[in-house]
Each structure stands twice: as C-alpha cells, then as structure tokens.
C-alpha cells in the first residue's frame, strides 16, 4: 500500500467512525474529534460531564464502531484493584492438584470504559496507573501485556462530589485529554429523545478494526513538525509552571503547579493526528492551540487566586496561550 492510499484510508476511516458515532451521539462534535485523536494517538481520555450528556454512550458506541473488545468498569468505592486488573485464583486441576491461575479482570480489553472513575478509592484508582501508561498489568510476580490498541476512556461527574476521590495527579497525567461534555442544546436534546424512542441500544456498526487504528497511529507519527511549532508547544507547557524563572505572569498568579513533560508529549502527538485528520501534513501552531485546553486542563492545578478571580482552568489556559503567542512572537523577532 502506498502512502497516498494510507492517507486516503486514514481519512476514510475517520469519516466512517464519525458517521457511525453520529447515529448514537447527538452533537458533541469537538469531543468526538478529540476522542478520536486520543485513540489514534494512543492516549487515554477522561470525559467529564454532568449525568446524561452521553459520556457512557459515546464510549460504548465507539467500542462498537472500532470493533474492539470493550469492557466497562463501574467504579465504586468498594471496587478493589483486583476487580479491575484481575487476580490469581487457586484452582484444582483435573488431577486434583492445586494451582494458581490468573483470572483477567475487565481491564483486559482494547477499549475500557472506566465509568465514574473518581468514585473508586485511590487504591483502586492507582491500579490503573501501570495499565494506562505501559499497557501492562502486574499481578504478583507476573506481568501481563494488554492487547493493542488499548484505551481507557474514563468518565467523571463534576457535580456529585460526595463520596468521590479526586484522581491523584499521577493518574491524571496518564490521561492524554480531559474533555468536557457540554450540556446539549434544546435541538440536540430533542434529537436525543427522538433517537432513544426507537431503541436504547447503540446502533453504530463496526467500521474499522484495531489493526487499522494501529496503522493510523503509525502514519500520524510521521507527520512532520517544525522546530518553531515544537518549541511553541514546549514553551506553552513551560509557561504553566509558576516555579520556573521568567515564566508567565498567569502561572505565577493563578497556577499552583504546572503540567508535566508528558503533557508536551501528548500535545505534540495529538497535534500530529489532528493535523492529519484536518488534511494537513504538518503540525501547525493552530493545532497546538486547539488541543492545549484538552491536554492541559487536568494537568495544571489552579490556586485560590484564580478561584477568587472567578477563573476556571480553561480561562487560565486561554491566558497562557495568549502569553505564549506574545512571548513566542517576541522571541522570533
């Protein structure tokens, strides 16, 4: 297959997925695009939204569309890590001997929906760390590789905070994007109601497979990024750190701690996919800017000054973007 065909297939696959998802999910186009970007880039996504906006439905529909083994883990306070990863169990063999055998948990799937992930205890949440970063599960002395492609799509409810455990920063960092699912417009709600009158099940069909996703990922990795754009991304992430000398005023004033280098990796990788998805064969400043909120909003912690000034994390990121543009254009001059 020559390269042009690969690119063509890439765009066709994206179009197909989007078409299928439209059958089950009304609106949320930006979220859908970003989820696809994350999946192709090999990142995990944290979906945040009020109940009923279609978080779970989106993930389920996506699982169907991608034709990937899908599992759903409902995170609850009593959920144990072994409930996620699986555990060694003692079994009696046919010959009557006892042996330990690893029973795979629901994490052993290509697409895992970690529903209401913030309701599990930190102990259980932390069981996701290795899985999400290394796509491996270690139980006892044994390490089990997960099948590729592997994605975790987690959801969390921002308003029901009672009995929840905020995700630790280390785990947050494992998510490539944190996406807000906004409340649908009246027209969208009407469409949702009409759609669910027929059936509550997802109707999306499988249009691609895991192999295709892996091929798309490899293709996206080859998208060139010039030094200026790379430096722009690095600069933006650096500006989130209040402790760095000559950092942004915004960071000094509003940020408690900034994003990790993993954010920069995620930003560049995701930007490549975004560029390719949009028919561009190189990463642009626009790609970086567009993905910055999704990449950074869960990686930086705003302080009380921001709250006092009635700024949320997205407002702070917007300020950082403006400062980054200004300082970067000054540097170029």
């Amino acid at each position, binding site marked *: 297959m020559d*390269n042009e065909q690969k690119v063509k297939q890439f765009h066709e696959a994206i179009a197909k997925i989007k078409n299928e998802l439209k059958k089950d999910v009304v609106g949320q186009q930006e979220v859908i695009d970003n989820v696809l970007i994350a999946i192709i880039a090999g990142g995990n996504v944290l979906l945040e939204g009020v109940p009923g906006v279609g978080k779970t439905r989106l993930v389920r529909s996506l699982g169907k569309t991608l034709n990937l083994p899908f599992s759903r883990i409902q995170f609850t306070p009593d959920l144990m890590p072994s409930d996620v990863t699986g555990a060694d169990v003692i079994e009696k063999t046919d010959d009557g001997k006892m042996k330990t055998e690893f029973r795979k948990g629901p994490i052993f799937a290509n697409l895992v929906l970690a529903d209401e992930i913030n309701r599990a205890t930190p102990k259980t949440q932390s069981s996701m760390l290795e899985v999400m970063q290394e796509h491996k599960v270690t139980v006892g002395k044994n390490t089990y590789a997960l099948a590729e492609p592997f994605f975790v799509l987690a959801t969390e409810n921002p308003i029901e905070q009672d009995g929840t455990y905020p995700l630790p920063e280390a785990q947050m960092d494992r998510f490539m994007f944190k996406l807000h699912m906004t409340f649908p417009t009246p027209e969208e709600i009407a469409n949702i109601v009409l759609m669910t009158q027929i059936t509550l099940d997802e109707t999306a069909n499988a249009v691609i497979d895991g192999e295709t996703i892996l091929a798309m990922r490899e293709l996206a990795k080859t998208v*060139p990024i010039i030094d200026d*754009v790379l430096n722009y991304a690095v600069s933006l992430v650096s500006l989130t750190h209040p402790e760095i000398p000559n950092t942004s005023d915004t960071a000094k004033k509003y940020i408690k701690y900034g994003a990790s280098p993993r954010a920069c990796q995620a930003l560049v990788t995701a930007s490549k996919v975004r560029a390719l998805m949009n028919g*561009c*064969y190189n990463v642009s*400043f626009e790609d970086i800017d567009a993905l910055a909120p999704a990449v950074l909003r869960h990686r930086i912690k705003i302080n009380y000054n921001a709250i006092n000034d009635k700024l949320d994390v997205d407002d702070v990121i917007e300020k950082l973007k403006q400062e980054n543009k200004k300082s970067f254009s000054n540097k170029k001059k």
Partner: protein
Amino acid sequence: MFMSESFKRIKRKRLLLGVLKSFLLGLASGLGGVGIAFLVVTLGKFDFLWVFHLIIGLGLFFVVGVPIFIKEFPTDLKVAKKLDQDFSLKERVQTLVEYQNSDSVMSKLQREDTNERLRAIEKKSIKFKDILSALVVSIICLSIFASGLAVSLTMKADAQTPSQYVEEIFDYSQNRQNAMLELIKNVRDSKLDEETKENVAGRLEEFHAYVLEGERTVLEVKIAIGIAVAYVDMELEGVTSYREVHKEVARVNSGLADGIVATLTTYKQYSFQFSNFASLTSIYETIVSENELLTSAEKYFSKTEFTLAQIGVEDATHEQIKRNLETFCREANLYLTSTESENPEKPHALKDSFIALTRDLDAYKDKIDEFTDLVGVRAEIHEIFTAFHQSFSLAIDEEIYPSMLQQFIHNKLTEIFKLQSIDLPKITPDPVWSNDREQQEGENPENGGSGGGGGTGETLFPSDDVIYDPDQAKYVKYGEILAEHEAKMQEMLMSSDLPEELKKAILAYFQFIGTYNQKE
C-alpha cells in the same frame, strides 16, 4: 534537496521586493534627511556647504538602506514564514523548507500539498501592502525634501539680491587702513586753510574710526562713506565755484574770464582721474606757481594785442608772438585737461612753450623801448600785467585747490573702498558755469544778475550764451545783440568828434570782440 519551483520564483520576487524596498527607503531617508538639513540650515541661517547635504543624503541612504536590505533579504525560512503568515498556510511552507531534505513519505505528501497551494498563490505572493509602507514613507520623505528645498531656494532667492550686498562684511584690511590714514595725512598736508583742513580731516577721521569700531557690512561702510563725503563736499564746495576767479579776471579782462574759468572747469572734470597726491600737488604747483607766466602771457595776448597794434609793432613780430602765445595756451589747456597729465613730457612741453613765448616777449620788449614817446603805453601794459597777475593768482589759489582736493578725496575713497563713482555724492557743479545755466536763469530771471556777471555788460560770452538786456528787460543771446551794439557803435563814431586814433581803437576792439566770439 526537494524545493518547489513555485517557492523559488516567489523567493526571487521577494528578493526583488527587498532590493526595491531597501533602495526606496534608503533613498527616501536620504532625501528626507537632506530636506530636514535644508530646513534647519535655512531657518537656522547656518553656513553649510552643499557637499555636507550630499554626505548626509548618501550617509542616510546607506545607513537606512543597507540594514533594511539585510532585514528584507529573503532567506528560505523568512519567505516561508511570510507566506504562511500572509496566506494562512498553517506552517506548511516552513515545514516544506525545514523538511526539504527529508525523503519520508509524509514529507513527500506534505511537499506536494504545499506545492499545490504555492502554485495557487504564486501570482499574488507579493501584496501591495508589502510595498505600501515603503511608498508612504517615501512620499513623506520626498515631501520633506521638496519642502526643505523649496524653503531653501525661496529664502535664498529672497535674500540673494540684498544679502550679498547688505550682509557681506566689509574687509577693512590693513592696506585700506593705511591708505585711509595716508589720505587723512594728505589732507592735513594740503594747502587748505587751517579751519577747512581740520574739518575735512576730522570728517575723514570720524569715518575711519567708525569703520574700525566694529564689524561693518559693505552697505554700512558705503553709507558711512557717502555721509563723510557729503560733509567733505559741504566743507569744500563753498570755495570751488570759480566765481571769484571769474570776477577777478573779468575785472581786468572780461573777455578772458570765461575762457579761464572754462579751462579750470574742464580741468576739474578731468582731474577726476587723478588719485595721486603728489601728482595733484604737482599740477597745482604748475598752475599756481607758473600762473604768473600763464596769466601774463594770456593777458598780453588778450589785452595788449590791441595796444601792440596801436603802437605799430611789426606784423611779423606780432604774428610770431601771437603764434607762441597760442601754442602755449593750447599746451596749457591740453596739460590741464588731459587724462595723461602725469606724463612727464607734458610739463616740459608746457615749459618749452612758455620759454618760447617769453623769448619773443623779451624781443618785443626791446623793440618797444624804441618808442620812447609811448611810455604811457608801456605803463599800461605793465599795469595790466601786474593787476591781472595778482587778482588771478589770488582767486585761483583760493578756489582751484579745494576743488582739486575735493576731487582727489573722491578719487582716493573710490580707490580705497573699491567704489563705483555712483556710490559717492556727485560734486555739485557751479550753477553759474553749468550747462543748464540758461534753463535755471530762464526759470528765475530775477536772480540772473548775480550769476557770473551775467547781464553786467562786462563779460564776453559765446554767441549762444545769454545775457541780460536792460533795454528789453530780459535775457537774450549774446550773438543776437552784438551786431546791434556794433551798429550803435558805428553810428556814434560817425556822429562824434572823436580823435581818429581813438576811433581806430574802438573799431579794433569791436573787431577783436567779433573774432573772439567767432573762435568761441
């Protein structure tokens, strides 16, 4: 290396644009700088050589033009950034440039995609706004230059005519100062009376001190000279009318008075050429010291001719004396009026003429000694000679020297200060002897009797001159009444019992008058 042809062409265009822009802005800055320099120099009235304007212009051209060219010089990356920015190409061209050596699949696709877009924008890759700022700046600078030049030229033109004359500082050099002091000394050494001498020298000293006092413009000096000369003229003109000369001469020889005054006037006019005090003195000495001889000769010629004729001098002797006398008079006139009067030959010629005349006179004197019965005639001749000499010498001494000195001062000042004759007040001509006398007298006949003996009947005028006729109570031409007077004389001679000798003398006298009149 894979580089788009479109990109290369766009780059060439931008190179041309850079050259044009830098040249335009450099030129504009140069012209603007020169314009500002013009304004500053003109309005500030600084003395600035035009070559400095040129240096400023060229300096600014390079100082501004070169950095702009360097800044605008289109490197691949600069052109790429510009194109990405101007056409919202999302860093496609920059990627193209940065990955031009990459042969990866995606780079190839990226190149193709970018090339396609570059081809689409190639024609409009140079936008008018790229050159707009340069054009605006150029127009502004050009306006400044034009304004500066216009102001400079206008003010220069306004100031040109008077300034070179008015503003020029007069150089009162040491040589000029010495010449001025020498002139003052000449005045002090002159033969003027002490009071006049002090006044004239004082005026000149005052002027000298004024010029020395501080920096003076040429115009100021000219005005000061004019004032000084006006004062000097006032001091001297009161004694330069020759009226006294005329009066004195006319007292003993009315026919000769006009001739002498005319000669002196002519001399005065020509003496304008003299600027050497020694020469002036020499001429004056000649006139004054030898005037005894001159006047005696002329007196003899004019007055004694009648007497000689009466006593029967031989015609040959008479004619010889007459010729010598005429030669002398001609030489004297020539000497006095010649512009080459400094020629050393002239005084000798005058002297030789004089010697010839005196020799003849001596010879004649010997002859008249034989006429012992005519002692009265001899006494008459002697008396006339003495009276004329004394009166003429006195008059000429009083009048001609101030006139000469006045003219000398004019000449010297003109020479020292490099003036034109029109820069100094004109020496007022004596109304009595000037050419417009007739007009003046015609306009004011009541005053005519006081002028130069006009209308007294004592003066012999040229035939076209006017004379007051008491019978007609108006001024008439002398030539018109001469025949009438002669007719009356003939009538009186016919009807009277006068001795024959006296009748002859009267006839001879009228004959002489007629001859003189014809000569004039």
